């Protein structure tokens, strides 16, 4: 009962194309906690701690995962991409810009996770139907928007990508 937390683990993570050292950590820390508290990557959000809401979504070896459900130390040999790795600050990606323009952002807490999920969706399916968008993004909960403007944003990106391919 009275044992203290051991904060002496050291390992490396590959995040957004860089190798980052994690020092003085406890082995029980989730990937979400380590990204936020050890590496200062605060864009991934924690909202349920159970993989239900998708706010903490990141890519691990190109797979969309809830970083709250991954032990950081188990991801040492994998390639991790967070919201900070999507586009440089001030130069948003097409998905990010569409979310702003379409009114898909209100409080914005779910937004980084949804941006990750939308990029992953459009990688798999360039022109999803509305129903495919709903199905594919249903692991990301938004409490503010009622989802209508988010669907609009995703559709805008799909259209503009098609048009730029055709052009």
């Amino acid at each position, binding site marked *: 009962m009275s044992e203290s*937390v051991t904060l002496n683990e050291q390992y490396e993570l590959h995040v957004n194309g860089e190798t980052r050292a994690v020092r003085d950590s406890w082995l029980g820390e989730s990937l979400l906690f380590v990204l936020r508290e050890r590496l200062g990557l605060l*864009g991934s959000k924690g909202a349920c701690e159970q993989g239900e809401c998708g706010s903490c979504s990141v890519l691990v070896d190109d797979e969309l995962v809830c970083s709250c459900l991954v032990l950081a130390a188990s991801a040492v040999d994998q390639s991790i991409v967070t919201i900070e790795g999507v586009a440089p600050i*001030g130069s948003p990606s097409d998905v990010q810009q569409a979310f702003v323009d379409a009114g898909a952002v209100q409080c914005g807490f779910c937004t980084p996770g949804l941006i990750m999920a939308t990029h992953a969706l459009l990688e798999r399916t360039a022109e999803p139907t509305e129903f495919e968008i709903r199905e594919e993004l249903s692991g990301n909960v938004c*409490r503010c928007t*009622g989802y209508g403007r988010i669907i609009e944003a995703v559709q805008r990106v799909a259209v503009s990508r098609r048009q730029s391919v055709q052009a």
Partner: protein
Amino acid sequence: MSSVTGERTRTGRLGDSISRPDGTPKVQGSYAFSSDLSAENCLWGATLRSPHPSARIVSIDVSGAYRIVGVEAVITAADVPGLPTYGLISSDQPVFATDVVRYVGEPIAAVAADHPETCRRALAAIVVVYEVLEPLIDPERAIDGSHPDIHPDGNVIRRQRIVCGDPDIVGEVVVEDTYEIGMQDQAFLGLEAALAMPDADGGGVSLHVATQWLHEDQKQIAACLGLPVSSVRLTLGGVGGAFGAREDISLQVHTCLLALRTGRPVRIHYSREESFLGHVHRHPVRIWMRHHATREGRLVKVEARMVFDGGAYASTSSAVLINGVTHAQGPYRCDNAVVDGYAVRTNNLPCGAMRGFGVVQACFAHEGQMDKLAAACELDPVEIRLMNAMVTGDKLITGQVIENVAPVARCIRETAALPLPDEPVGGHDHDPMRLPGGAGRTADTSHIVRGIGFAVAIKNLMYSETFDDYSTARCRLADGVVNLKFATSEVGQGFITIAGQIARSVLGFDNVVIDSIDTDVGSAGSTSASRQTWMSGGAVNAACIKVRDLLFEAVAVAHGVDPLSLAIDGGDIVDRNGVFRVSALDAALGLSFDETVEYHHKPTEDLDENGQGDCHTAFAFVAHRAVVDVDPELGLVKVIQIATAQDVGRALNPLSVIGQIEGGIAQGLGLAVMEEIIMSNGHVRNPSFTDYLLPTFLDMPSVTASLIEEPDPIAPLGAKGVGEPPTISSTPAIVAAIRDAIGKPLNRVPVRPTDIIGLSASPSI
């Protein structure tokens, strides 16, 4: 803003659907929510909570926590230097429990340590000995006196009757029923989080917190800390949604106490489970209603009895109750009423503000009644609502006359006229995924029944019963840049967007900067009650007009024109009666102005013992139509479409208005068919997103919305608040659609599969 000759359109003005100024940092993950804030040498804090709904505390031994390496402080009620209690309306809730605990989750102690895991272990090492008591669970027992008082203030928080017109009149047609509304959680995604930083001399504290009302927090925190208000400074941390749950104190006092005790910055982040226990919820309510009408369907009298379960502490229960009883008639003319309402104390979770604030509950009942009345009078649900729709000048059952624009009939007609979905059950492609049950593929298309339901609502805007919930705004103009300062909590609704639009429209400058949102300016009141567009919008507008008038005077002197004939046209200052035109930017060169304004709404009155009085400030209206598909064998529902026409006064930013409408409807849908905090003998059974179900992309249908724009002359910008109405009548519309589909009475929300199949005879869990 009226423009003069030669339309010079500039973007970012009132009426434009511009995007949020915080949009880019939010999509890039660089926006600082309050849970993203930290400081050098910062500690983590955590709270020990009661596992019992009712118990006497025999002893608390914190020594075990201190033996854990990394623990810096453990505090209990004995460490609260000021007022031991807090509360929005009455100060009845202890900072930490002392002799008794009154709900599961009540704070008993708090710790500060080097790591969240250390905190968890420290909490586990605190030994509290309880003598468990029989909890008061049934609100009726709070009223009938059969359970001893669970609080020195008694078990009835407030009772309010309304007697209007002839209480004994009887209609030719009479319908009655009892309705129940379950406890809903606001379920904002950004969990409670705060960072407290002690002053170097220990004489004060700065708190960064996600809240709806900085100045009310400041007042309550300072009282508990025993510090002058000026020694407690609050700054708004980025807010991840609110919906009423951030109006009350949760972690504010605890975080400050730990920071002052340790002399180090402290942050507390609630977990999702803790969040379910740590903030107030929507009141569960039981409502009996009896409606009297003429044979033709004209409302004659409304009778109602409403019992709001306030849980262990008062919070805003008394105001929620008043909203409930005063909205019992709905948006319908009615000359006679007898309404009796109670807000009571139990050992359930404390309840308070949530989007719709008492009106959600009243509307679910009165709309169920209107459908019953329609059936009894052999009228269409739309027809009976149109026949009874109130208009400007009508008197409410409180005697208050509706002075606002009241386009109730228009809301109803335009909603009814919106196109129905053209897709048949299962969609044109007969995809079983589109049926109720979705990916479970449990439904047989031929067994699915479709239903349509209708509901209408009236909602008060701003605070009531003599409360002067004013708002303050400061406008500074210097070097061609407009700086706006206010303490208005931006919780995601987009006030900072329209604040900029107001300033650009009034002053003609494109460059508007929103200053830090903190307590260095006067109160803005709460971001609640659909009030900030009206109140803080009114304050920003008035402050900008003051600066504009000073600028006009300077221009008039410089150019020899009449200041009263000047106007803003796009980015220019023009003479309405002449040819003079100068760009606002040039005119303001070298000038600076700084004006602060308080905006107050008209005074309101208390209700008398018969519930009479002009207690409300203003009203807005809305109608909803729902289309649902139901699997009657498995009791599953899929909402196919929501259509709505909403009285918005004037859409200052149509895109933002649509966002409020769609988001509000999603929460109404949640209450209709999904969301409920399930309590069992005072214990919460589902405090997680695994077990408390929120609408996802697959649950929420597309929304077809019509904005009714009839600018309200009473509103400073013609605009009414739009946040709450979408949440109010969407719920009863969906339930009416389910009733329509299956032909069964459903008087309880959320509607559960067992209610549809008919397995649950009793409305209680």
